[in-house]
């Protein structure tokens, strides 16, 4: 069920002060697919990810040119409500960052601020935790502190937290880099479940992970998008020499 593009990026340029960090990036992100962004560290892939939900707005000295179209509408237009935008595009961070409150309150945080009533809240929390494959492990201690969970559980809690605001798109910024292999495996399985309902963009420097989980892959190098294709094509038959060098481990 491929119903077209959720997000289209057109000629996106970004500067940190004088540093031209993203150069003329063009990319289509398909609905209900997992798009992976790979590349050596410092290549701009995380910066690019933060353009999609305008988290770069929070960094001083960032200048952006170009368009990011979410279902056809440019999110960098003047009158765009950034808060509403972030509600539609959730983000999961590199390091699990649960808030210092109970598991329940962490998941309920988003719905509460967006005005979901008390009655529905229990249902939203349960569903989100189930969708994040965490419910079985925590259902008996929802009032326990989120910071007492293991790293992998914390990261799934952050996913549940993102799901609870019912976004259309979820951005994952190297979600497994701080986790052990078993937790990584669980989250990768979870991604496959999530893509049935959500559009997913994942930044990773782990090429095997990109190959395992994604449908499309983009390769970034020095702020430029070198190549973008179906994951299998990109890994088995890359068009560009730099891509081949990178995935065969000649640099990176």
């Amino acid at each position, binding site marked *: 069920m491929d119903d077209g593009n959720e997000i289209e990026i057109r000629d996106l340029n970004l500067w940190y002060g004088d540093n031209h960090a993203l150069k003329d990036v063009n990319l289509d992100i398909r609905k209900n697919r997992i798009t992976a962004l790979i590349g050596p560290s410092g290549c701009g892939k995380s910066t690019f990810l933060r353009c999609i939900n305008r*988290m770069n707005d929070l960094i001083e000295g960032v200048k952006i040119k170009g368009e990011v179209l979410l279902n056809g509408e440019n999110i960098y237009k003047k009158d765009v409500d950034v808060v509403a935008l972030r509600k539609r595009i959730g983000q999961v961070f590199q390091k699990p960052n649960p*808030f210092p*409150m109970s598991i329940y309150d962490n998941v309920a945080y988003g719905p509460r601020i967006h005005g979901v009533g008390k009655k529905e809240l229990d249902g939203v929390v349960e569903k989100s935790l189930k969708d994040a494959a965490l419910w079985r492990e925590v259902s008996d201690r929802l009032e326990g502190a989120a910071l007492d969970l293991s790293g992998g559980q914390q990261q799934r809690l952050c996913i549940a937290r993102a799901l609870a605001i019912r976004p259309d798109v979820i951005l994952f910024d190297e979600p497994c880099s701080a986790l052990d292999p078993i937790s990584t495996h669980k989250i990768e399985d979870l991604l496959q479940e999530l893509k049935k309902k959500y559009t997913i963009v994942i930044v990773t420097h782990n090429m095997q992970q990109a190959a395992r989980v994604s449908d499309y892959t983009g390769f970034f190098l020095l702020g430029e998008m070198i190549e973008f294709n179906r994951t299998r094509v990109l890994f088995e038959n890359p068009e560009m020499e730099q891509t081949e060098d990178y995935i065969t481990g000649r640099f990176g």
Partner: protein
Amino acid sequence: MNHQKREDLVKSVLFVFSITASLILLLIIIFLFNEAIRLFQEVSFLDFLFGTKWNPEQGLYGAFPFVFFSIMATLGALIIAIPLGVSCAVFLAEIAPGWARDATRPVIELLAGIPSIIYGLFGLVIIVRFIKVSLELATGETILAGSIILAAMILPIIISISQDSIESVPKSFKLGSLAMGATNWQTLRKIILPTALPGIFAGIILGVGRAMGETMAVVLVLGNSENMPEVVKQLLGKEGSSTVMQLINQVPEILFKPGEALTSAILLEMGPAQVGGLHYSALFALGVILFCITFVLSVASNYILSRSQISVR
């Protein structure tokens, strides 16, 4: 002498120096109690602390009026300084663009550096006159004037400690909340302030200690009358039938009346008091009360601060 021996020698000499601070603290305690003890041979400690009459000529040493006025002026100062100080801390830590932060920080430092006698002078000439004229009171030297001046004096400490604890809230909490479409204010109210709360609380406690111990500003603006409102006396005395509600109803009246703080009493009466006499000893006993209050507040606040740093980092 080889270098190891020399190092050990230096180390033990430094050790002797480094206990000076503890030694001074110990000496302060010993000397205060040593002078105060003569009073407690005549007057029981509870009578001293809760007695409502202070008249050295008649041998009456009830310290409660001074404690009461110190607490009232401090509470008033907190009501002004907490909202103002915490919101300024939020401004510095979260809102202010670089230039505004650079402009505000030296202001806070200067505010902390102004000598208390100058706060007092300013309070006497401006605040006291303003209160007298605008409220049409017989005298502007009131608890209210004391509260306003004390508020300005404790603002720097509340701001700097609150700002530190707001800034020590991990950035990831804030980003996580904003990424979910929370507004800045929602993020602040639900994530940042609750996490920073112990530190803010510690700053407020330190501010209370400062306010209770402040002398020069208070003595100039408070009016120095140890007459407590009747209701308070009744509450303490056995004949009293008044209720707490009555006391609360009297708060405006108390605010607009003169009072005398613990610190003022020591300062004003040390001159006339005869050395070694009971009056002299009673003034040291007031110092003991003051010392105990500020000591407990300081230990509590440092305990909270050290605990909160562990849990955050």
